[in-house]
């Protein structure tokens, strides 16, 4: 038994968390007792006896589960356990519950964890829709309703869309560039283990006195600085999710820059790699801003500083500037990796090189550069400097241009191709093009200041959000999951169920979110538990579609679980794709490659006789003769 508590693992993690929490609790009580304060402070925002343990317990957990063992030995100059790679690969399902440094295992851990949060966030959405099915209050009160959509959005954004992309890329990206693993495998593991902590903090806030955080996912001050204890859980959860995503991004950047296989120049990288390169640049440089914003709110709440206290020289609007300086780029963090996935899927299933490969990559760079200059389009009616509106409008509208380049290039890729629609991944990719275009166009309409003045903070915004996030990001996620499912699990999923899921999702998305545009323009504000009777019928319809959308996700869940266990064995390359991850077995060998492959051409050399993207070990040393591999434009 004692040994179980000494080895890294769940026993030690639980022990670590408990000890750390107790330490924090004791510290607070003793210190307050010494300074003559009441030991248990219970004023609305304070609660140091809860907050300090809440900060410390995660570190105890991480220490216990084994994220720091190697580093600590290393730091103190002790002999580090020689790399025996025993923590590589997963031999049973139990290995997924341990700290593991294998990017493939971490990728799966990421994806499964984030989908758990997707379903919990979706469950919250179902409750939202149940309450909104009729005017008046039926299921939850106004306060709980506010918590529901805040937690819904926080989970979907910080624990589903952002990290699931990190998970997919974690799995396929090192394989794609011919690297044996990520650059910093232990940092990679730490990134993953910080995620469930963030999720538990968000969900745990339901237990806090005063209920879960309820100031929206945007947490505007001063509503958030005066909110009950639950808001602090949000402040802290965002720090863990943010740290996790910065660490992963850093890892991707270093991996992509320093670990590409010989011959893989930047212009030979698959677009998924480009997409993650640009996303990671965004993450590294933007995420600290939300950390900063949440720290300031946290300090205002706990230490009673005055960043946003208007009576004491604080500036209310500065919160929004700092928040959106991250959170606008964040929406591209939530879509660019998806663009990468779509490029891979479309090119493979249309059997054609990506149209305008270089411009596709440059468009990504264009989007990230522009995305830093548009944050205030969320603040057109916020009472910020009014001179800032027109410049922000112009940059906002211009983002349509690089995004349009991507849409049109995907269409161009389809032309003169041999389009196969037998894979659910391709169906999602094709539907994505249309659905995302709708969401993007409504975004451009929001960019036009006078129209935004009318529809800001109405259901039109909710419609836009879900068209770009559900019809955009989540469709790409599904495409990616279906596309790489055979690679990750070594099994094929059931295409029939895939189709049911696809059509249900497509109809559900349109049915749920299209009418939201209409009621928004017609005067229904967002974030309300109750609304005018005139919107009753539309909301009922929306709720019905939403339940259908929710139900059909269970088909997906069933398909994934059953196929993973019982699906027919997958070949190495069921889609006849070109990129390197398909040239190894399904699932890939434990160390990815026996020898690093050599890249001899572009990633999308469909239709060029004899052309190859990469030569695997043992395939012959000479570059094959054939048409020279050129890359577009």
């Amino acid at each position, binding site marked *: 038994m004692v040994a179980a508590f000494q080895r890294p693992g769940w026993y030690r993690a639980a022990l670590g968390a408990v000890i750390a929490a107790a330490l924090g609790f004791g510290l607070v009580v003793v210190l307050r007792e010494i300074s003559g304060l009441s030991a248990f402070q219970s004023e609305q925002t304070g609660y140091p006896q809860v907050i300090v343990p809440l900060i410390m317990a995660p570190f105890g957990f991480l220490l216990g589960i084994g994220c720091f063992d190697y580093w600590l030995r290393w730091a103190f100059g002790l002999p580090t356990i020689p790399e025996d790679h025993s923590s590589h690969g997963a031999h049973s399902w139990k290995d997924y519950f341990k700290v593991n440094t294998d990017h493939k295992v971490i990728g799966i851990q990421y994806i499964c964890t984030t989908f758990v949060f997707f379903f919990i966030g979706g469950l919250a959405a179902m409750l939202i829709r149940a309450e909104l099915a009729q005017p008046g209050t039926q299921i939850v009160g106004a306060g709980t309703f*506010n918590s529901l959509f805040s937690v819904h959005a926080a989970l979907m954004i910080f624990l589903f869309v952002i990290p699931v992309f990190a998970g997919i890329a974690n799995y396929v990206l090192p394989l794609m560039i011919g690297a044996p693993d990520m650059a910093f495998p232990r940092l990679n593991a730490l990134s993953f283990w910080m995620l469930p902590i963030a999720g538990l903090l968000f969900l745990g806030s339901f237990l806090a006195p005063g209920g879960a955080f309820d100031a929206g996912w945007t947490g505007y001050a001063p*509503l958030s600085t005066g909110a009950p204890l639950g808001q602090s859980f949000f402040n802290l959860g965002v720090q863990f999710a943010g740290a996790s995503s910065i660490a992963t991004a850093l890892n991707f950047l270093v991996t992509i820059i320093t670990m590409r296989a010989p011959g893989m120049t930047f212009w030979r990288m698959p677009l998924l790699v480009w997409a993650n390169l640009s996303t990671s640049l965004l993450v590294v440089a933007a995420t600290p801003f939300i950390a900063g914003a949440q720290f300031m709110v946290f300090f205002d709440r706990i230490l009673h500083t005055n960043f946003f206290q208007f009576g004491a020289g604080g500036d209310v609007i500065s919160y929004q500037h700092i928040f959106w300086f991250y959170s606008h780029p964040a929406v591209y963090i939530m879509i660019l990796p998806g663009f990468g996935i779509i490029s891979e899927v479309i090119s493979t299933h249309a059997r054609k090189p990506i149209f305008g490969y270089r411009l596709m990559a440059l468009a990504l760079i264009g989007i990230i550069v522009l995305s830093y200059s548009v944050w205030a389009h969320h603040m057109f009616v916020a009472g910020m400097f009014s*001179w800032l509106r*027109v410049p922000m409008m112009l940059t906002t509208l211009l983002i349509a241009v690089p995004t349009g380049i991507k849409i049109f290039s995907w269409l161009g890729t*389809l032309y003169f191709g041999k389009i196969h629609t037998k894979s659910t991944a391709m169906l999602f990719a094709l539907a994505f093009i249309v659905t995302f275009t709708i969401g993007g166009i409504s975004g451009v*309409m929001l960019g*036009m200041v006078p129209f935004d003045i009318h529809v800001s*903070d109405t259901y039109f915004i909710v419609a836009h959000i879900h068209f770009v996030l559900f019809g955009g990001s989540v469709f790409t996620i599904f495409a990616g999951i279906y596309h790489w499912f055979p690679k990750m699990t070594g099994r094929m999923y059931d295409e029939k169920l895939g189709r049911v899921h696809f059509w249900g999702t497509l109809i559900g998305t349109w049915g749920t979110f299209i009418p939201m545009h*209409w009621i928004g323009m017609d005067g229904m504000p967002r974030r309300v538990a109750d609304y005018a009777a005139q919107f009753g019928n539309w909301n009922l319809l929306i709720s019905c579609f939403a339940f259908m959308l929710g139900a059909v996700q269970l088909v997906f869940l069933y398909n994934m679980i059953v196929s993973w266990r019982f699906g027919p064995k997958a070949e190495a390359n069921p889609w006849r794709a070109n990129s390197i991850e398909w040239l190894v077995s399904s699932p890939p060998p434990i160390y990815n490659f026996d020898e690093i492959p050599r890249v001899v051409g572009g990633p999308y050399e469909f239709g060029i006789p004899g052309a190859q993207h990469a030569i695997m070990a043992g395939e012959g040393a000479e570059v094959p003769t054939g048409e020279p591999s050129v890359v577009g434009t």
Partner: protein
Amino acid sequence: MTAAVVALAAAISAVMLSINWDGAEDSTAAPKIDDLLNIAIVLSSIIFAIVVVALAYALYAFRAKPGDESDGEPIHGNTRLEITWTLIPTIIVLFSGGWSWKVLNEIEERTGHEMTVDVFSQQYAWSFGYPGKEYAYSEGVLHVPVNRQIVFKMHSQDVIHSFWVPQWRIKKDNVPGITTTAVVTPTKTGTFQLICTELCGFGHATMRAKVVVQSQSAFDKWVEGLKEKVPTPLMVSVKQDTETNPEPLERAEAE
């Protein structure tokens, strides 16, 4: 294909333009914003039609026959096409931006004989202050004269609220600590609803006020009949500011 795009765009535009999305137009800003929406609808229909028709045609013409395992043509790009689809959207968005800018300037232009009304918001109620010979307050109901430009000076006592009358198309946040402004010229008499559109707590959904637009003479009479209620400190300070100094001392929204 071009024909299909034109037909689809025309069809979508025709349907969408025939519907009055935004509701009644009861201020001078409303028709301008709705015209802008109509322009956006037409442009969007065109873009949407292009994408959908192109996709549908590709799916129709380039579907792989069953059993066909060959590859498509190795076309890597076409510079002329790529320039086209960079330039045309640029032109479209710059045009939309220019038009929006124009509309923005028009709806915010001061007429020179505008009237000021102070808006006070707090969790979860609205009050209004009418500067004049006698500064008067009303609670929960806002009266304004028709066909006269009103400058709303907005003040919040606690958290951010937002002032929205859908029929006027005008919305502005009330930010504690600063004064924000919105200008509206109502063009129709009647009763409307003022809706709070910024999440401000559990009472956010029900934070509404009645808006009465009436003729100038009826309005004047109504203001005269107002009895001064006990105002909050913020209201008093705003009132004093207005009386001693036409520009409020509080940091106004930077121009």
